[in-house]
């Protein structure tokens, strides 16, 4: 009896424990099947995207083809439906099926599905770590030489290039710099500051008027967004994070410790809202939309949502200049994202390229931009809303590609943003930098 009971106990425990492990194992299993069993082949890795790897079995003329388009922007679904309708009318032999995965699942679900070519003939991807891993897996078809590339502003599609090949075309243009309430600034006679002292003085004035100078979503997107303009002039070298990953510079060096010290200064002087580390995106956005905060430390992608929350808002963009005016190299930060690529394993690569070509036409890109409130990388687009026009003005300014997205190792990216949270949580800039550098060293094998 005792042994039976022991056996039952053991079985119960084993079942529960196996269940605990199988969560990861089953995902591995998915990956396996997604690769059509290929992982059994322990041969050296294939090279990054090349059109020669793509099956050339495009649908013959007159034959119907269905292409799959996957992305993460559920909020753009209506705009895309209308555009896809036009595309299908123009190309009656091509049907576009769209699947939207939430951005937090996009890394896991969508990325794995791309591997067998069953979905995502056309797919969107993020620049930086995700672009690097998809390129490494050889899942981008080479778009180099495609005629539609000339529809884009050349400098804005560089993020989709690797080893001289155009693997993806960024479609959206975002400025990752804070939004400010222009009416509040005007009311207190403030202008966008041109140096660090001016930024602190403006923040002090706003605080003395009973406002929250900067609404900072420290619990989620804030550190990853605000770090970009904060570091852009402290480390003007556009390759600074590539050098960090190569072990040629450290987070304990002056450029990052200074950036962390400036974050600490803003926090210690009470220029962020109380308990900023517990505030999420929506909370900070609400403070700004309600007029309780003068600056929102996110980016231009938030303009449309803010306007929806408060149609009276008069919003503009500014970037904190963390050095003296004469030392400032950059005026702001831009990101080109929502990078459209053609799956190297697509059975309909020509139809997929035709769809991207359609999206790159200035009238279609304009329709998308004006319907979604997002600026685009396509040339000569006419924007209709004040917010989009405000953002478009920034294309003439000297901006730099988002430094955070130049970090290709996601763990290093997290170590960098976590060091900001650590400082706001009370650690000294030096200690936070040391701890983050220890993770970097581990990741790069130093």
């Amino acid at each position, binding site marked *: 009896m005792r042994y039976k009971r022991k056996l039952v106990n053991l079985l119960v425990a084993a079942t529960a424990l196996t269940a605990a492990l199988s969560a990861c194992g089953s995902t591995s299993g998915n990956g396996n099947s997604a690769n059509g069993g290929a992982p059994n*082949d322990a041969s050296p890795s294939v090279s990054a995207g090349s059109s020669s790897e793509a099956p050339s079995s495009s649908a013959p003329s007159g034959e119907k083809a269905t292409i799959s388009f996957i992305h993460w922007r559920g909020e753009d679904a209506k705009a895309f439906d209308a555009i896809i309708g036009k595309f299908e009318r123009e190309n009656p032999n091509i049907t576009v099926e769209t699947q939207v995965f939430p951005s937090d699942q996009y890394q896991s679900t969508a990325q794995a599905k791309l591997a067998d070519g069953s979905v995502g003939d056309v797919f969107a991807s993020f620049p930086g770590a995700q672009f690097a891993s998809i390129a490494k897996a050889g899942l981008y078809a080479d778009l180099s030489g495609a005629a539609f590339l000339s529809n884009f502003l050349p400098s804005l599609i560089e993020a989709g290039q690797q080893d001289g090949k155009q693997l993806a075309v960024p479609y959206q243009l975002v400025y990752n710099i804070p939004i400010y309430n222009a009416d509040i600034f005007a009311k207190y006679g403030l202008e966008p500051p041109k140096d660090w002292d001016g930024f602190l003085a403006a923040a002090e004035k706003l605080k003395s008027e009973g406002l929250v100078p900067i609404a900072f979503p420290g619990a989620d997107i804030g550190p990853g967004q605000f770090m970009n303009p904060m570091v852009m002039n402290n480390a003007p070298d556009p390759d600074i994070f590539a050098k960090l990953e190569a072990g040629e510079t450290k987070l304990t060096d002056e450029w990052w410790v200074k950036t962390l010290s400036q974050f600490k200064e803003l926090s210690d002087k009470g220029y962020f809202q109380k308990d900023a580390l517990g505030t999420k995106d929506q909370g900070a956005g609400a403070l700004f939309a309600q007029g309780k905060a003068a600056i929102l430390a996110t980016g231009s992608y938030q303009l449309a949502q803010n306007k929806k929350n408060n149609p009276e808002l008069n919003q503009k963009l500014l970037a904190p200049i963390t050095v003296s005016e004469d030392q400032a190299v950059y005026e702001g930060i831009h990101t080109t994202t929502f990078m459209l690529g053609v799956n190297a394993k697509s059975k309909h690569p020509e139809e997929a390229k035709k769809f991207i070509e359609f999206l790159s036409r200035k009238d279609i890109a304009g329709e998308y931009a004006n319907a979604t409130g997002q600026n685009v990388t396509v040339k000569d687009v006419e924007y209709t809303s004040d917010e989009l026009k405000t953002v478009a003005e920034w294309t003439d300014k000297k901006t730099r590609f988002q430094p955070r997205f130049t970090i290709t190792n996601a763990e290093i990216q997290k170590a960098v943003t976590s060091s900001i949270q650590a400082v706001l949580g009370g650690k000294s800039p030096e200690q936070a930098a040391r701890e983050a550098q220890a993770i970097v060293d581990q990741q790069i094998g130093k």
Partner: protein
Amino acid sequence: MKPGKRLILFFLPGTVLYLALFVYPTLTGLYYSITDWDGLSPSYRYVGADNYARLAEDIVFRKSFANNLKFMLAVVLVQTAVSLALALQLTKKNKRTVALRALFFVPTVLSSVSVGFIWTFIYDPSLGALNGLLEKLGLGALTQNWLGDMNLAIFSVAAVQAWAHIGQMIVLYVAGLQAIPPELLEAARLDGGTRGQVFRKVTWPLLAPAAAIVVSYTTIQSFKAFDLVFTMTGGGPAYSTEILSTFIYGAAFTNGTFGFASAASVVFLALISLITYLQFRLLRADRVSY
């Protein structure tokens, strides 16, 4: 076919499902743990024990493990004690106790992602209901930055985990309590036992099997509490709520180191096995039969 052999057929569907959905993925995980597969590439290399060696030195893995222990201890203590206290009050069968049991069970049927989002709003330091309530009650001094304080965040999430699962544990305890023969309790009382003595000498030892299930289930649950942490804090601020499951997710899907993540899963399994085994040993010592 003999009836005995026919009975074996009844085990077949479950066994097949178990093998296909649990055993096979588990073994696959073990296999990938000795490779450098990135989760996407069609090929990979065998790296032997490299992933395990890396894991032993990984700073974030160690932090995650320490956080997971804190989280587990908080959840096991609170969930076990509170559910036992409530179960003792809800053992009698009448309309009131049945209604209360159902009420306590409601959070269990909610999706953990919904629970995470609801509590994130409740915990919001400026707009959240919890700080608002404390202010209204004149307890403003107790308001906290529940998810933003690096020392407090893990316990704030643990409290939600306990809140969400207490109802489930009440059911297990109530079943255990109702299985205790009333004559044993009555005899103990007639012998002059106080309430405390009756609980300590009769109820608790007979409840040990249920307690063992509650504790081991709660332990495994708290190690697997991915959804709540992911939705409420994402492991932050500054890794203060990073636990093993979020670490494994990040390694696999964000950083594209699937082989390394599989090795972490294997270690994760070994740790849960060890802790569960120790708990069984500990609780079996209290077990008696009359």
